[in-house]
């Protein structure tokens, strides 16, 4: 069973690589959004350093959102989702497997590029490691929650905007605790509480979202 779980995740990752490399586009979007801020608020170094962590998190949220519709769209259109629904693997596990593939193709490249953007934003030296930890812990929740929006809007022709409206409010806890975790590490006021909250939120999404998304997929196929 676990071999089947990995094979579905691997298949989605391969498709993402071969079909015009989504990862590269998401990373490009991430870089552009972050670089827009110095242009907008002015190149004052102290100001940039203060907002750097928040900006990087917001940009990561938006970049993640950008590729959510791909999670189920292609599978829905070519009939693969029908076959998944009646396959020996439960649809809930398939949702987790597809969320994993989305995380690997979207969030992992973002995490890798984050230190460079930190330099660009004059981020505090002490924030580099914490932000990588925080993103590693927090971004799986983004992909998992995203599957709910992706599955609810899969049968709509132009579900992109609705998807953003549905999902962005649910991303707020990740943003709040993600920024809080990094900031408190920089200030030296601990920060483990915020990290734990971030981890708890990811685990909570792992426990809840597969059921919700699988139900939405079944509804979409009906």
């Amino acid at each position, binding site marked *: 069973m676990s071999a089947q779980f990995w094979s579905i995740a691997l298949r989605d990752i391969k498709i993402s690589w071969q079909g015009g490399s989504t990862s590269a586009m998401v990373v490009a979007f991430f870089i552009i959004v972050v670089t827009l801020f110095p242009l907008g608020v002015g190149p004052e170094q102290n100001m940039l350093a203060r907002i750097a962590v928040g900006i990087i998190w917001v940009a990561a949220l938006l970049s993640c959102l950008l590729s959510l519709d791909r999670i189920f769209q292609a599978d829905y259109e070519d009939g693969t989702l029908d076959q998944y629904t*009646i*396959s020996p693997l439960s649809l809930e596990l398939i949702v987790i497997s597809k969320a994993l593939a989305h995380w690997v193709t979207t969030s992992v490249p973002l995490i890798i590029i984050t230190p460079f953007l930190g330099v660009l934003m004059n981020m505090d030296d002490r924030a580099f490691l914490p932000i990588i930890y925080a993103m590693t812990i927090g971004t799986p929740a983004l992909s998992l929650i995203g599957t709910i929006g992706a599955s609810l809007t899969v049968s709509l022709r132009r579900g992109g905007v609705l998807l953003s409206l549905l999902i962005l409010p649910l991303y707020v806890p990740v943003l709040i605790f993600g920024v809080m975790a990094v900031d408190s590490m920089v200030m030296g006021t601990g920060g483990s509480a915020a990290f734990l909250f971030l981890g708890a939120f990811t685990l909570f999404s792992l426990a809840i979202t597969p059921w919700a998304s699988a139900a939405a997929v079944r509804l979409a196929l009906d």
Partner: protein
Amino acid sequence: MKKTQTFSVVNLTVNRGDRLVFRDLEFKIKPGTLLKLIGPNGSGKSTLLKTLSGLIEATSGDITSDESSVLGDHEWISGHICYLGHKNALKREFTVFENIEFWARLWNNPDRIASVMEKMGISHLSDTPVRYLSSGQARRTALARSMCHAANIWLFDEPTVGLDDQGLKLLSIAMQHHLDGGGMIICATHVDLGIHSEDMNILNLADYSVSASQYMEKW
């Protein structure tokens, strides 16, 4: 896995939205027989096949195998039913072999790949990406993929769409072979499948559809 002896539908009624598609449908099939679904467009052939494979919920009625209900039983369905709808469920990015291999592994039958490809006459296309296939070749690939499933019951929705004469003949041979081995097939089609007539029953869904006048009476 124990082979199913009978597969039957009792008083099955299915709605799509507000519309009643068919009502009180009943049939029973035995091993080695094919049930051919006919009926005008919109009479619910695809809906019936999707309901049998659990993709659409039945409004009322029951689906039974060997006298026990299997309605909504995901584990039974995934082990005993192989469904192929209008869509081929092939990934354009991968080759014919990779597409078949993925599902064969998911269904735990990787040793069948070579033989099903030969059965449908697509062995020479093994390394061709699916995006270069004609619609008939893609349909053959989807059919070959379905035959990797160890399921006893095949549910095919218009399997012959896009197939040429040779493809139809290969499909007919494969279907007859499945029937001779004690399998069951339910197939929506308007084409002569070339199955021995003693192995074939015909179900006309028009007999169960709700006519416009009856539909109006409801209101």
